[in-house]
């Protein structure tokens, strides 16, 4: 049984100029211990599809899916309070902007203990010990002292570690990382990705990495989904995606990477491709 299973997910937003389809017929499966990367350019619906799966979209969004199950339980039929018991505990999410996603008014210690207070019945002392343990596991030096710090006192990389620690607080079965390293320097990116992969390996959890960076995909994923304008273009394991891409869009994307350039100019095939051609070339 898959950990998360989505079939034919569609998300529509009502706009002044009629309904806008942000996600159109996305299907995916994630197993335990598997790393899935969803890659696409901005506006490809990669974040929205995951937010929809977690039920985090505002009421203006219309979400429909044939199947949307987590660990065998139907997420659509579930009541809001039941879903809130799962989110943050069994499914956790890391967002792109680490500094913006922490509350600037509270210490990081308060914010990580808050998760434990809501989802576990640990006492005050036990919560604090667990927070220290979590900070240690994500590599934050002097955890006892750091718990009392506010987000603005920490660097971007440290804040992202706090976010990861908070996400891991209840040993989630599935971790969704939405552009976890986009705002960070390459050297810090490497540390964070290594940390995510190490923790994923230790806990055997499912991991979904949402990214636009082919480099991040190459370094982390087992399986890859390529999305464009809300639709799935290609789904393949990481090696075959990079060695023999099947759809025209994936080929064009990989050709546009500066490291694959041969001459003085980069091939800009996506510029000439129409949406219809891209969708026609989709390989499910």
């Amino acid at each position, binding site marked *: 049984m898959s950990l998360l299973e989505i079939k034919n997910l569609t998300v529509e937003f009502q706009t002044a100029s009629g309904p806008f389809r942000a996600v159109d017929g996305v299907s995916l499966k994630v197993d335990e*211990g598997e790393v899935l990367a969803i890659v696409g*350019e*901005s506006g490809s619906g990669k974040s929205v599809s995951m937010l929809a799966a977690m039920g985090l979209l505002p009421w203006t969004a219309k979400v429909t899916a044939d199947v949307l199950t987590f660990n065998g339980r139907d997420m659509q039929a579930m009541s809001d309070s039941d879903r809130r018991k799962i989110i943050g505990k069994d499914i956790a999410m890391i967002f792109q902007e680490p500094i913006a996603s922490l509350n600037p008014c509270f210490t990081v210690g308060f914010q990580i203990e808050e998760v434990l207070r809501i989802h576990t019945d640990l006492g005050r002392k036990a919560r604090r010990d667990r927070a220290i343990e979590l900070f240690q596991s994500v590599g934050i030096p002097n955890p006892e002292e750091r718990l009392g710090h506010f987000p603005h006192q920490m660097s971007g990389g440290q804040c992202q570690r706090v976010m990861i620690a908070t996400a891991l607080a209840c040993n989630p079965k599935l971790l969704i990382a939405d552009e976890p390293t986009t705002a960070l*320097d*390459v*050297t*810090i*990116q*490497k540390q964070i*990705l290594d940390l995510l992969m190490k923790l994923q*390996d230790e806990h055997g959890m499912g991991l979904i990495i949402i990214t*636009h*960076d*082919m*480099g*991040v995909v*190459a*370094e982390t994923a*087992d399986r890859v989904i390529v999305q464009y304008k809300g639709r799935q273009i290609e789904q393949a394991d*990481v*090696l075959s995606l*990079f*060695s023999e891409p099947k759809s025209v869009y994936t080929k*064009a*994307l*990989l050709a*546009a*990477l*500066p*490291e*694959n*350039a041969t001459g*003085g*100019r*980069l*091939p*800009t095939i*996506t*510029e000439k491709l129409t949406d219809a051609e891209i969708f026609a070339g989709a390989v499910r």
Partner: protein
Amino acid sequence: MTPVLEAKNLKRDYHIPGSLLKPAKTVHAVKGVSFKVEQGKTLAIVGESGCGKSTVARMVTMIDPITSGEMLIDGRKVDIASEPLTSEMRSKVQIVFQNPYGSLNPRKKIGDILTEPLVINTKVPADERRDRAMAMLKKVGLEEKHYGRYPHMFSGGQRQRVAIARALMLNPRLLVLDEPVSALDLSVQAQVLNLLADLQDEFQLTYVFISHDLSVVRHIANDVMVMYFGEAVEYGSRDQVFEDPQHSYTKTLFAATPRVDVDAIRARVERRKRVA
């Protein structure tokens, strides 16, 4: 031939005033860097956030005065702290910023954005300003009909084209590009990089290209300077730096850059299988 830009032992300090509880402090943002760029060439400056690469850009574009050292543009010594900046010098160096969503005034039409440098720095009459802006729009791959539109009507890549067009309106000798493609999608990034290369060929432009993305740098640069905590730890031709990095920080940087070649992926997948 005199290089377009030459910097000798360039330094920049920022003074942070103290308060009742905090003593005053001086931050040495750039601790003496030297470099030069010949006409038609590209120098890339690489480093992580806070290493002083944007401070170098501010000094080269004559936004910030230099604390000590010497900077020559077209063989002429420039020091904005001691002498006022003439519009002639101002038009020699122009800059393109990282985020095209922030660098274009949302209340101004594209036409006004493009002609503004001419209004400020030259005495070109209005109808010629308009003609030049129209011609520049075509040069950067936009159309004449875009002249009367507002920035919010454009995509990120198009906005970056507008920002590049604005920088070129004064026919500069040197263009400083501060992370010009890091806010753009992969396919758009390729288009903008190609545009920059075309413009460089056409006008013999000189670029100072600031970036943290080594794959982009390797593609576009002739020379590379790696900065770390305000110092230039590595400086040489592209092939020198990439083939044979000397400083340990440069090596760390190269090791941290994700690799997308198939062999590296195969090795990683197999390593993962063995563990599992």
